[in-house]
């Protein structure tokens, strides 16, 4: 009995020793790891191939590359203690497949164990990865994603942040311009509207139908077209037949470019000509043969904002081409906010997310950029080509926007 008691005590002692040793070892390893941290790893999955590659390559990837280069050139990310750690990046091609983007983000979180994950391009893809980002506790800075449901998503995934507003924001701001023009007697109350039967087009046209109806406009032509469409001559002639003074197309870049070329050929130039993604790309004027004056779209910049023009110059210098006039600057600003959050609270993901939602940041958008309920609200909703620049406009101008100039002149 005594023997077994002492045996049990010995065993307990040995176990305790083992446990202490294990603990010490573990602490030691963590300590070593913390000491040996010589970099911060970032990962992202982006569409380098497939149908989304064009959009990702215009708006998102160059800004990731620009920002990483700038941070690393400066010695790395600044930590709260003033030290700097260089950024290392792991990139996967999601091949424009929703399954692939989810798999890649899961891999980044579980296998590569990166410190931060940057979001993919596109509304659908950001929604696809949002639950995962939330599950693994990564701040999700959804940049190139337009959604009216952002307030709901923020409740569901509290580490998600939405930078591009919702469809209703864009269509309501555009309707304000149209209402003012109608009241001034410069346009009639008819709108011809087409939309691509895919994510962006479906979302925007749904919001637009409601907004236009509420504003008392008659939508005289309202058709969707498949994403593969390349010839718009029939659609444009049908739209022209309705005698609407306003033409709206919620289109992706290939359609935006084709619509412009086709409208030029058929001399279709209504007083208000509003196109979707692509009209704010720097290559757009070249595609339109120079005559883009008056064409409207989403986004736009304030040419008098020096922060923005410096950013544009830097982008052109590093990447070799100018950023677009809509999403690029928002993506870049979101990265600056992440950078400043890390500088303030370190690499703890939860602390960074908290700082993002409550802090005030100095970004290319302005010296005091902050999120409201995890959403960026102070952005430009309507843009128009004026004198070779795609500027943010509103009905009367003011607050960083120029006054809209309508009717749009002819194509030549």
């Amino acid at each position, binding site marked *: 009995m005594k023997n077994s008691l002492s045996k049990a005590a010995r065993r307990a002692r040995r176990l305790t020793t083992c446990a202490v040793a294990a603990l010490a070892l573990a602490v030691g390893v963590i300590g070593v790891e913390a000491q040996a941290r010589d970099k911060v790893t970032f990962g992202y999955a982006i*569409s380098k191939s497939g149908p989304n590659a064009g959009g990702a390559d215009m708006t998102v990837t160059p800004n990731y590359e620009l920002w990483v280069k700038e941070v690393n050139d400066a010695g790395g990310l600044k930590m709260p203690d003033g030290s700097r750690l260089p950024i290392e990046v792991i990139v996967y091609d999601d091949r424009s497949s929703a399954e692939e983007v989810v798999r890649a983000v899961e891999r980044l979180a579980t296998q590569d164990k990166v410190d931060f994950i940057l979001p993919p391009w596109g509304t659908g893809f950001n929604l696809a990865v949002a639950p995962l980002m939330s599950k693994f506790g990564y701040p999700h800075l959804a940049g190139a994603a337009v959604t009216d449901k952002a307030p709901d998503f923020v409740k569901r995934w509290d580490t998600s942040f939405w930078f591009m507003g919702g469809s209703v924001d864009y269509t309501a701001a555009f309707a304000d311009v149209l209402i003012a023009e109608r009241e001034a007697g410069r346009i009639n109350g008819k709108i011809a509207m087409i939309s691509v039967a895919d994510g962006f087009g479906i979302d925007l046209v749904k919001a637009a139908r409601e907004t236009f109806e509420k504003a008392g406009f008659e939508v005289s032509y309202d058709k969707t077209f498949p994403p593969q469409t*390349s010839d718009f*001559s029939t659609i444009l*002639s049908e739209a022209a037949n309705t005698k609407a003074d306003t033409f709206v197309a919620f289109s992706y870049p290939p359609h935006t*470019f084709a619509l412009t070329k086709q409208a030029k*050929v058929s001399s279709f130039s209504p007083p208000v000509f509003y196109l979707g993604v692509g009209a704010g790309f720097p290559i757009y004027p070249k595609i339109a043969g120079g005559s883009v004056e008056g064409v409207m779209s989403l986004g736009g910049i304030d040419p008098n904002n020096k922060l923005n023009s410096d950013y544009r110059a830097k982008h052109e210098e590093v990447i070799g081409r100018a950023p677009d006039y809509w999403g690029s600057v928002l993506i870049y600003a979101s990265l600056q906010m992440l950078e400043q959050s890390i500088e303030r609270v370190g690499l703890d993901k939860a602390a960074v997310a908290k700082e993002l939602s409550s802090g005030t940041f100095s970004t290319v958008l302005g010296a005091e950029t902050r999120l409201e309920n995890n959403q960026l609200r102070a952005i430009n909703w309507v843009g128009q080509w004026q004198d070779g620049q795609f500027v943010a406009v509103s009905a009367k101008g003011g607050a960083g926007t120029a006054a809209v100039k309508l009717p749009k002149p002819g194509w030549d």
Partner: protein
Amino acid sequence: MLEHVVNGLVLGGTYALVAMGLTIQYGIARIMNLGFGDTIIAACFATFVLFTTLSINPTVALLILVPAGYLISDVIYRVIMKPLVARAPDEGALEVDSILVTFGLLFVIQGVLLTLFGGGYTSYTFLNTPVNVLGSVVAANRLLAFVLSLVIGGVLVVVLFRTRWGMILRAVALAPKSAPLFGIDTDRAARTAFAIGGAMAATGGVVVSMFQTFTATAGVVFTMKALIVVILGGKGSVPGAVVAGLLLGLVETFVAAYIDPGLTLAAVYTVFLALLLVRPNGIFGKA
């Protein structure tokens, strides 16, 4: 009404133009080239580079790129396809093997283009001037595609049906096993056919780049469209490709005008299915 007919024919001209090359490669060389669309895209980029950096007019670029397309396809056939042809026990095996190999070729071409040009949208403006055809306005670049498809289609038909050389090609298409008995070099005929297909892809690429925005990964859309036109027209039939291409253009335009632009794709597939039910080998296919 007349306006839609003109628009439909002009649109269909593009389809016919990109499909003729594929139908020759498939019908005569027995190679189902899934990299066909990517060859078109490669030609689009080549035209873009010639136009923007060297200011070479795309119509002049045709004179450079069409022979280049012929030569490159000839080399591809010698290097990649010939071993397949040599070891395939029958036509069916060759078709399956060629599908697998050209599926790989698709990604090689795509990868090279992605490395060279990135994934962005590329476009330039050329001949985007209105031309009045029977009272309706069409873009000159699309009209060019239409005219080219008719001219090339016409020339090919004459060559295939009125020359000795064309007869040899047709003999190989019709009876590849018996052709050698008449002293026909089937390998050479198949290589020529494959190379002609490549040259036609280059032609399509040059013309398409004048009016359409393209990306390095957009080739599969062209392959799909061309495949539909080829099957609809009857594989190996040049007149079939032209007729089927124009028919699809007309269907798309009329559906867009009178029913709904959203149903154009559905209409194309409906026509496709309906025709195949009636004529399983396509409009000009041999029963």
